[in-house]
């Protein structure tokens, strides 16, 4: 539960200051530099958007998701709008190399009458580009404090901190000419009036519902919006301001620009992207998911932690019959709360989460992600996704659980659903893939290609099917390409730390509950019953009844299922079918918990049932063919 819901925030203050800016302007760096102490990351209520808070003097400083303007085009914008409407003041971070783009948001904040201080960031890059901005002239034009900064080096941060109390907004701005359209008695603040004349429906609806509706003839607030006029007028004001404060010298294109060009040309971009994805897979899927996790699981937990805890629990609990179920819950060999559950969280999940957030941080800060999206957009369009879905798919081959989190960046609800379903269904994770590759190697190369072919076919068909059946339309790719940069290690580490902390805080209780539930099922003999019930299904795919045991193991962890296959004396065709079935079969318990957390219960259940159907449907079909 987030602190917004409970009200007892770790960061407690009367006044709130919001940090607002376009994406990739160094907002989180400015935040990190301004933060005096404890940083609190939490989920904004009812959304998948994370916000970060910290103490700032007597006030609370809140970081907001990057947006190009205050409105409601997506979930991030809605969150930022809510925070801005409640904030007492705003620090607006502006990218000096993109002044013309970023001032739209600045002028919008001032139109809304929100007390603002502008941090004119990335002054070093602007200078390298040959862009010269007269900060004093900009301050005079805008009528609010403007502080030049280079946040990654800490330059200008002290002055920014000192000038935050000077935050102000002009008493009146040209947007007011549209206020005449509003009814005289509308009970709206200047900020709300601005949003209403811009056609922001959520604001109009909220203000309407609070007002006493006058007699007929007054247009509904939702119909007043004149977004294009207001936006167009604001753009012209931006041009005027920029013309007065900025001078530009032509420079040769930088390495970043040339590299960006290489990335976006399929001839050169595809090999670069493949090499990078290979490196990511190697790092997450091989180094961390196998080497680090194996060391932790086998050595640290297998040899030291688990035996010690088991010994301690057995020593403390009396050998009475009432203690037996408790002992089972705490230390059973499948999912004991104090042993295997801790092992999964600390030994498996933690290293993967850290590695994963580290890689994502690098991809984000370097500007790689949107370029990958451009390269893969066309292919993914065919299965109802746009290019942004490439990231979950790639990360999924490393670890499906982690990939489910990245579906947040894919776009709207429909696309998140499709990508999550495909991940759960047909993307094998690296832990499982290692064992599967070993088994297939024994069968021969032709079976390996057969396996890959079947999976890609299922992926394509399932994607097409979901694209056709789900309501709504595919959202087209519309994305800004931020400049390419070498990421700063300090910022990457800071992000990784904050995100990991937040993830663990939310995930640990979920896993604990899941572990207790499964242990209880096993204790009362549920496993044997399930195995019996499953026997007709295993017969369907032409496999012996012991295969049901493999599937049960797969419910807990997918690589357990794959490993379970190695013990069984199957024929070549049986092994192949078995491997296909366990790949398509339901995702592991950790992934399921993540799907449940990120999506809703109904979608999660549908995906779970769908995995059963597809796994056995395809398995049955293969049994007939082979």
């Amino acid at each position: 539960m987030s602190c917004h819901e409970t009200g007892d925030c770790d960061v407690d203050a009367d006044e709130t200051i919001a940090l607002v800016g376009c994406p990739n302007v160094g907002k989180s760096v400015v935040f990190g530099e301004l933060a005096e102490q404890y940083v609190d990351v939490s989920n904004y209520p009812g959304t998948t958007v994370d916000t970060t808070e910290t103490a700032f003097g007597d006030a609370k400083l809140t970081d907001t998701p990057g947006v190009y303007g205050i409105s409601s085009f997506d979930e991030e914008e809605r969150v930022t709008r809510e925070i801005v409407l409640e904030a007492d003041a705003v620090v607006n971070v502006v990218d000096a190399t993109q002044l013309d783009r970023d001032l739209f948001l600045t002028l919008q904040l001032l139109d809304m009458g929100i007390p603002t201080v502008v941090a004119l960031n990335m002054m070093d890059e602007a200078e390298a580009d040959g862009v010269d901005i007269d900060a004093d002239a900009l301050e005079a034009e805008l009528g609010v404090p403007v502080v030049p900064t280079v946040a990654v080096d800490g330059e200008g941060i002290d002055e920014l901190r000192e000038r935050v109390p000077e935050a102000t907004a002009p008493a009146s701005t040209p947007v007011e000419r549209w206020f005449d359209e509003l009814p005289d008695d509308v009970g709206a603040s200047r900020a709300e009036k601005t949003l209403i004349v811009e056609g922001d429906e959520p604001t109009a609806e909220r203000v309407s519902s609070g007002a006493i509706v006058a007699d007929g003839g007054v247009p509904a607030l939702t119909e007043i919006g004149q977004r294009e006029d207001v936006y167009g007028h604001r753009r012209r004001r931006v041009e005027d301001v920029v013309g007065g404060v900025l001078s530009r010298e032509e420079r040769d294109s930088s390495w970043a620009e040339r590299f960006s060009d290489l990335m976006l040309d399929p001839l050169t971009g595809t090999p670069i992207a493949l090499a990078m994805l290979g490196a990511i897979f190697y790092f997450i899927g091989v180094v961390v998911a196998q080497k680090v996790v194996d060391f932790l699981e086998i050595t640290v937990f297998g040899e030291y932690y688990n035996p010690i805890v088991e010994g301690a629990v057995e020593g403390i609990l009396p050998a009475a019959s009432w203690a037996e179920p408790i002992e089972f819950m705490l230390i059973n060999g499948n999912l004991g709360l104090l042993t295997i559950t801790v092992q999964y969280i600390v030994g498996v999940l933690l290293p993967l989460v850290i590695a994963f957030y580290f890689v994502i941080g690098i991809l984000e800060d370097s500007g790689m992600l949107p370029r990958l999206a451009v390269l893969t957009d066309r292919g993914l369009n065919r299965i109802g996704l746009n290019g942004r879905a490439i990231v979950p798919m790639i990360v999924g081959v490393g670890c499906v659980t982690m990939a489910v989190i990245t579906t947040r960046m894919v776009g709207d609800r429909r696309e998140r659903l499709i990508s999550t379903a495909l991940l759960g269904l047909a993307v094998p994770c690296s832990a499982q893939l290692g064992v599967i590759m070993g088994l297939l190697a024994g069968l021969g190369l032709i079976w390996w290609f057969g396996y890959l072919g079947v999976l890609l076919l299922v992926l394509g068909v399932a994607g097409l099917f979901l694209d056709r059946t789900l309501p709504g339309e595919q959202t087209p790719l519309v994305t800004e390409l931020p400049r390419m940069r070498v990421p700063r290690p300090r910022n990457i580490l800071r992000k990784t730390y904050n995100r990991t902390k937040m993830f663990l805080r939310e995930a640990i209780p979920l896993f604990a509950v899941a572990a207790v539930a499964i242990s209880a099922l096993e204790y009362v003999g549920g496993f044997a019953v399930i195995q019996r019930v499953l026997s007709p299904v295993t017969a369907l795919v032409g496999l012996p009844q012991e295969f049901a045991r493999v599937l049960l193991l797969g419910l807990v962890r997918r690589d357990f299922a794959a490993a379970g296959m190695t013990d069984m004396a199957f024929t070549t065709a049986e092994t192949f079918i078995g491997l296909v079935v366990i790949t398509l079969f339901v995702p592991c318990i950790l992934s399921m918990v993540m799907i449940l957390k990120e999506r809703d219960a109904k979608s999660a259940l549908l995906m779970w049932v769908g995995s059963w159907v597809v796994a056995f449907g395809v398995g049955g079909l293969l049994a007939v063919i082979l």
Partner: protein
Amino acid sequence: MTEVLADTAPGESVSLERVPDDDVRARLLRLGFLDGAVECRHRLRKGPIVLRRNGTEMALGADLAAEIEISHARADR
């Protein structure tokens, strides 16, 4: 004949005249892409098109590019 963005070749300078999708139009307007000439930086075969204006780069999917009408900007910009 009206020309659409999808037909633009890299290096050309064009003005976006008509963007049918309301949300996309508002987003482009906000970023200044409807203010005047924009440069076509890249076009992937049957794929997205990348536009540039004052150092800001935007990628638009192929279907979207096929419905955005353009005119060629004069050489004075």
